[in-house]
């Protein structure tokens, strides 16, 4: 592993450790929910990570479709990054669902409810799992094109998830950030949000970059083998 990657990992672990400390021991306890509200500091970065990596997947899929017949080198890079970002997004989405379910059980008394936010998020997760399964099990030269098209359609669910608590009445609370006037959390709680947001996004970038390298090498090797066979 290259030196910059080790340094990035070291910085990431430092930020995550500080985020953990600030979230659990420094910021004040929520007056209504008590300590269980601290799940928020791991729950929000999961959704931010999911949004970021699914957006990268969308961008890479568009680039792949645009250049696949003209610039093969760039197409491989875009497709490799699309895979890495989709996997990372699925991991973040899954963590968001798990932490949300645990939080819901503690404050609502239920693990799950079929409201618009939770259902659209589960559908989103399933779409990207299907995308990864398609990539894993479909064969033939059109697989990557098909996957890129699927990623574009799949991303249409992301704005739906984001807007679901604004458009419909849901069990899930109204948006904390960017919601109605007066929404948001106490400024004294914000350091826990920023540290964990930074830490988990840095972690996501680190892991996705490693995954990108392995996928790129595998695809490049596959291409070289195909050229050799000719």
């Amino acid at each position, binding site marked *: 592993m290259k030196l910059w990657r080790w340094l990035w990992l070291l910085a990431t672990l430092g930020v995550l450790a500080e985020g953990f400390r600030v979230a659990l021991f420094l910021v004040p306890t929520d007056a209504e*929910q*008590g300590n*269980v509200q601290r799940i928020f500091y791991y729950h929000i970065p999961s959704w931010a990570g999911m949004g970021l990596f699914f957006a990268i997947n969308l961008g890479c899929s568009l680039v792949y479709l645009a250049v696949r017949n003209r610039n093969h080198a760039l197409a491989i890079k875009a497709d490799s990054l699309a895979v890495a970002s989709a*996997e990372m997004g699925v991991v973040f989405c899954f*963590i968001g669902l798990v932490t949300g379910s645990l939080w819901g059980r503690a404050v609502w008394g239920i693990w799950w409810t079929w409201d618009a936010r939770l259902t659209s998020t589960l559908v989103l997760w399933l779409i990207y799992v299907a995308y990864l399964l398609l990539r894993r099990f479909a064969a033939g030269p059109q697989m990557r094109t098909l996957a890129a098209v699927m990623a574009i359609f799949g991303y249409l669910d992301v704005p739906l998830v984001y807007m679901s608590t604004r458009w419909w009445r849901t069990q899930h609370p109204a948006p904390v950030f960017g919601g109605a006037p007066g929404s948001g959390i106490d400024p004294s709680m914000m350091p826990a949000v920023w540290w964990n947001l930074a830490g988990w996004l840095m*972690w996501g970038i680190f892991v996705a970059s490693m995954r990108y*390298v392995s*996928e790129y*090498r595998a695809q490049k090797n596959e291409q070289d083998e195909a050229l050799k066979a000719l």
Partner: protein
Amino acid sequence: MGDMGHRHLVLAYAATIVIHLVYLTFVAIKYRAAKKVAK
């Protein structure tokens, strides 16, 4: 917060870390395999 809230807070943090570590292990295996092929 009662005992259940405490338990759920610990579970949420532990689940986050464990899921990330499981995926990191998968990525590390793929990374090593790709490095071997490149050599």
